[in-house]
């Protein structure tokens, strides 16, 4: 009898310990990788998080700088050595999920995440039906920065190129990038999206590049590339002679510096009568798969906090990253930002960037390089259509078999 009693006692105590452990929080080490610009900001917010959640007060958090593109590559090559929480742009999501480098978002956070962030950003963190990351920004799009003293009317690309030619200046756009290229194709009415399943595999392609609209877009690109005022590039600080450049919010400060008092920003122009479109892009925080339940809970809590309304707004104020949180987007300061409002105007013509196979980006660069190398200059419509058919067919080979 005594034995049974003591056994029961031990069992009860153990149960108590187990349940206590999960409420105890986590006191180990968590490694975070974020872009260089937000390292200090993230450190500050981690301290705020600890103050708000005493159960995590003893946790050691190490925040290191890691470019968003590099982060994904490093996570894929060495998941176990990588960061527990890391920031990346959505074009990396499919790769990360396919390599088992991303944990699903904790079920208790999903409803809030869906309700609080704009639909594009929620779509961007979803593979199939599963949500894999926490949306952080909704500003990864591009629009036009220009020099008011040179460009008289930024509404048509033909006009911009003429102004640039007259002034001996250049119009910059990185047309050999899969990201900027879609401005032409999507603008002309083409479609290129991929459906994914929950394992991060792309299983279906929806494409209409090989069409009249696609040929129209390609012809517009060829015509733009032919202009002596055209230069291929998308970084203000590397653009030696720019009067107009298609670039994103991350270069707002550099653009202000380059154009000085003549700085202006607006939505993309029209070309050949159609409005340029493009991608609406997003940045997000991901949590890697964990072998420890407590650590996973801590990572989820921290990631959810770092992407909450208050922190997104604070991030905008600190480094100017446009929030994906709907309430934060309504904030006065965010609404008054020149670059962000230009982006907002452009986003009306953009498609939220879904999932793309990694090889798509090099294929698009290949197409762009062929244009820049003047290989398509004298091509007739049939040849252009053939090129686009090949593009589509190659894209289709990237689907999971």
């Amino acid at each position, binding site marked *: 009898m005594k034995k049974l009693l003591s056994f029961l006692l031990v069992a009860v105590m153990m149960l108590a310990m187990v349940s206590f452990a999960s409420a105890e929080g986590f006191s180990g080490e968590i490694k975070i990788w974020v872009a260089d610009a937000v390292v200090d900001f993230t450190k500050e917010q981690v301290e705020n998080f600890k103050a708000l959640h005493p159960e995590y007060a003893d946790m050691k958090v190490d925040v290191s700088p890691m470019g968003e593109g590099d982060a994904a*590559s490093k996570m*894929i*090559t060495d*998941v*176990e050595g990588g960061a527990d929480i890391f920031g990346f742009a959505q074009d990396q999501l499919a*790769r990360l999920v*396919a*390599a*088992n*480098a991303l*944990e*699903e978002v*904790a079920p208790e956070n999903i409803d809030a995440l869906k309700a609080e962030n704009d639909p594009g950003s929620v779509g961007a963190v979803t593979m199939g039906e599963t949500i894999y990351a926490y949306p952080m920004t909704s500003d990864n799009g591009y629009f036009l920065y220009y020099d008011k003293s040179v460009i008289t009317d930024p509404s048509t690309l033909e006009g911009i190129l003429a102004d640039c030619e007259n002034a001996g200046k*250049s119009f910059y756009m990185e047309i*050999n990038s899969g990201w900027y290229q879609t401005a032409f194709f999507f603008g002309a009415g083409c479609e290129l999206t991929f459906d994914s399943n929950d394992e991060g595999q792309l299983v279906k392609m929806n494409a209409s590049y090989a069409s009249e609209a696609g040929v129209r877009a390609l012809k517009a690109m060829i015509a733009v590339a032919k202009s*002596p005022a055209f*230069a*291929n*590039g998308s970084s203000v600080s*590397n*653009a*030696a*002679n720019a009067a107009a450049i298609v670039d994103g919010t991350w270069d707002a400060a550099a653009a202000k510096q380059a154009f000085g008092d003549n700085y202006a920003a607006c939505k993309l122009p029209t070309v050949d009568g159609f409005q340029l479109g493009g991608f609406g892009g997003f940045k997000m925080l991901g949590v890697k*798969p*964990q*072998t*420890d*339940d407590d650590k*996973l809970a801590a990572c989820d809590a921290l990631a959810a906090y770092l992407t909450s309304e208050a922190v997104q707004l604070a991030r905008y104020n600190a480094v100017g990253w446009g929030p994906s949180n709907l309430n934060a987007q309504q904030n006065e300061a965010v609404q008054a930002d020149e670059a962000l409002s230009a982006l907002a105007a452009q986003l009306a013509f953009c498609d939220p960037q879904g999932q793309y196979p*990694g*090889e798509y980006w*090099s*294929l698009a*660069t*290949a*197409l762009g*390089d*062929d244009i*820049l*190398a*003047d*290989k398509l200059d004298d091509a007739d419509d049939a040849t252009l259509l053939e*090129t686009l058919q*090949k*593009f589509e067919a*190659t894209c289709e080979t990237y689907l*999971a078999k």
Partner: protein
Amino acid sequence: MTDLDYLKLSKPKKLLYRMGAFFKAIPKKTGHFFANLGKKILRFFKGIGAWFAEVFSTFRDGDWKTRLSYLIMGFGSIARGQWGRGVLFLLFQTVFNVYMFFPDASKSGCFYLAKLSTLGTVETQKINRRTVYGDNSFFILLYGVLTLFFIAAFIYTWYQNIRQNRISEQILKSGHKLKTTKEDVTSLMDEQFHKTLLALPTLGVTVFTILPIIFMILVAFTNFDATHQPPGKLFTWVGWDNFRQLLSTDTESYGGTFRQVLLWTLIWAFFATFLNYFLGMMVAIMINKKGIKLKKVWRTILVMTIAIPQFVSLLYVSKMFAQDGLINAYLMKWGWIQSPIPFWTDPMWARFTVILINVWIGIPYLMLIATGILMNIPADLYESARIDGANAFQMYQKITLPYMLFVTGPYLLTSFTGNINNFNVIFLLSGGKPLSMELSGNAGYTDLLITWLYKMTVNDTNYKLAAVIGILVFVVLAVINLITYNLIPSVKNEEDFQ
């Protein structure tokens, strides 16, 4: 053809004759090779037989100390008073046993060895939201290979341990004394000093060079790529599939791209080597010429390109040649061209530009080498040539060039090899661009095999194909080097200039 007939031939004919002879000899050499191979295989099996015979006879004829040594390594040595040797053998056996039968079974050599044939079968699982990693194919392959090495080393040491016993018994039987541990140590510092010196380098080369090479070769036979990335996913053996993919004759796939990149790599290596060589020599001759003033100034100006790190200068120069870079801007400002020259966007221009810029950074090195050698050519050769009425070109052709080729032949060979793998210049200047839809696998028109390999590993994590390319680069280099090495004058006519 007799020697005399050969000597009568003109230079190009001699070269043709030699090349003909080389190819004519191929069947004979191949025949020889296979005949030899047969003999070698026979000898190999005989050797194994003799080995077993020795192991067996030592056991049969040996005393109990020797026989116990078959189980406990070093026992015989310890029992006969050779402490040092015995303890080392025993230590090796202990380490080996611990490694093979490590208490944590999933970290033991036996585990890795057993899994080597499949590279792991246990998939990564999810328990609620927690991740439980399964087999890690990467470690299985790596440690599996390491285990094989270890086993080979163990068998060798075990055999040495037995031989040791046999020799000791013989020495004792003949009435001599065995070496004490102290004498062993002294001998390692004296007549066996080569062993002491070579122990560490041999171990280092095995672990840090040979092991990784074998590992990488094995990766070429697996499907290790972005979708089979440990620890989340397993990868496994696929035989020759990757080679088939890369060497396929289908122009649309990797096969066409591989041939294209290989061809450009060879063209690049040819121009980068010989253009630099002859232009560098020319510059050196010009500066060396009597009557040229400010020799040191010219040399210093050229050598400046060496003083600035290539990382800096190449990145800078690549910007200079950009569409909106300095060169195009000035050419347009002066009205020489109407629209920018597509230095980096047009395939042919890009290839031309990388070769041109490589000449700029390559000439100074060659100039320095050539200057040294030119000063060494005996002046009386030129004097007698002049008396015989030779002109400058004849003197260059008959004296300078043969002398240079003789001295720098091996240099040319290594620099050709170096240029095939000239990662820096291509990567920093063009990054392999421009890409094209006509090429697969992210390759560009200025990509060398080595930069393509880099892109595959770093950008696409396509390790399987990268490993195949690595092997093929080796094959290409080996073939070219073996042929040219036997043709260069420094090897052919070793005594010409002595």
